[in-house]
């Protein structure tokens, strides 16, 4: 496992254009596999159009204390892209005047943004139904200044969503780095101690499961039951729900697929598992992603591929709901990741 980002290593896949080339050539060029657009066409879903905007997902920066091998953000300690206070103020202005009911902060490790706490405080004053922070858990133990994060989350009734690839040390540390499992367990216990993950507390703690390798996630409910059983039996940990998320073939996961010679089989598995029902609820239809520098994207994955939303208003400072509602969502072959099997989104599977 590497401990540097693609960007730091100057790997050619750090250039989104190279990734998009990869996703459109080879098996998709010579007709072995249909392009995503062709699949949408079969169900008269092309061009893909948005529904009502419900979720604003804000990527407050690519800096992270971890370098996970599957990371679609290519995040790490060596990434310096961080959202400014000015951009956060522009987001708050937009938030006051939209149909958005869910605010979803992600990164990197969002807590590493120096304005993170200010933003959470200001955004919670505006009030949304669901205020999510995607925490990698280990950040809570990374430095003294983060130790009180669980109390801070509780104070602002933040819904904590945390990655934990597996309930065992081996699979977790392989994907996320040595020692991550033990720290994650400790952080989950700290959250539990404050009431997080306990049914009666109202403080929500959900976990995210990503397969640790070139395979698709299994049934969400089945995995959730296993996670609950094992985490409770082994560590006394409780949590609310498990979101299964398919790894999309971009950034560091794409690098892994190519290096391990799993790329073609993985894409084949995604295409074979294409589920037209999942397309109906795919997250780009009710979500907008905002990058650290304030640009708008159909999802966090498109952000990493630098595929800005269609239209003239591409920056949060020129936010125009009417125009955004009419846009065509941008797609490429990575989109197969969200439509495979029971579907995948930042809120887990899409189909019962």
């Amino acid at each position, binding site marked *: 496992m590497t401990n540097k980002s693609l960007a730091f290593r100057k790997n050619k896949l750090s250039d989104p254009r190279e990734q998009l080339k990869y996703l459109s050539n080879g098996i998709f060029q010579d007709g072995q596999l249909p392009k995503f657009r062709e699949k949408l066409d079969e169900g008269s879903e092309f061009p893909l159009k948005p529904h009502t905007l419900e979720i604003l997902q804000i990527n407050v920066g690519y800096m992270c204390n971890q370098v996970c091998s599957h990371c679609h953000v290519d995040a790490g300690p060596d990434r310096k892209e961080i959202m400014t206070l000015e951009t956060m103020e522009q987001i708050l202005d937009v938030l006051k005047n939209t149909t958005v009911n869910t605010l979803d902060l992600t990164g990197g490790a969002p807590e590493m943004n120096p304005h993170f706490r200010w933003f959470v405080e200001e955004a919670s004053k505006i009030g949304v139904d669901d205020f999510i922070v995607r925490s990698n858990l280990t950040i809570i133990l990374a430095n003294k200044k983060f130790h009180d994060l669980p109390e801070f989350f509780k104070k602002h009734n933040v819904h904590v969503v945390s990655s934990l690839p*597996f309930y*065992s040390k081996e*699979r977790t540390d392989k994907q996320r780095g040595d020692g991550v499992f033990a720290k994650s367990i400790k952080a989950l216990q700290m959250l539990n101690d404050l009431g997080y993950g306990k049914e009666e507390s109202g403080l929500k703690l959900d976990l995210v*499961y990503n*397969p640790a*390798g070139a*395979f*698709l*996630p*299994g*049934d969400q409910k*089945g*995995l959730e039951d*296993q996670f609950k059983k094992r985490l409770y039996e082994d560590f006394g940990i409780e949590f609310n729900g498990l979101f299964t998320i398919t790894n999309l073939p971009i950034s560091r996961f794409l690098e892994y697929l190519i290096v391990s010679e799993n790329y073609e089989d993985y894409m*084949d598995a995604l295409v*074979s598992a294409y589920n037209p029902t999942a397309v109906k609820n795919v997250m780009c239809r009710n979500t907008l992603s905002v990058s650290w520098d304030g640009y708008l994207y159909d999802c966090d994955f498109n952000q990493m591929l630098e595929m800005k939303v269609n239209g003239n208003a591409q920056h949060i400072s020129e936010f125009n709901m009417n125009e955004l509602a009419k846009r065509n969502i941008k797609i490429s072959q990575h989109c197969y990741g969200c439509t495979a099997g029971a579907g995948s989104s930042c809120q887990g599977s899409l189909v019962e």
Partner: protein
Amino acid sequence: MEKTYYNPKDLKKFGSISEWNEELGKKFFDYYNTVFEEGKLTAREKSLIALAVAHTIQCPYCIDAYTSDGMQRGIEKEEMMEALHVAGAIRGGASLVHGVQMMNKVEKLSM
């Protein structure tokens, strides 16, 4: 013709056996899919049984399919290996239990 008997890509074409006999093909796959549904046994337990049987009958397609299936279900590699040892124990036991027959015969032929 292929130069080897097994081609991993053929696994995905399994369904095509119905093309030459639709009625029986359909009956088989309906049965197959029903067998692996949640029942008195969980789908997870059935997956592990399938993996053990796959190794007993030494079917490369089945080994490929049920290793992947196990990974997706979150089955750990230690669980998979334990299941294989069950298969191995039964296989070995099936040879060794016939040792009683051998012993009986030796006893019968000996003075």
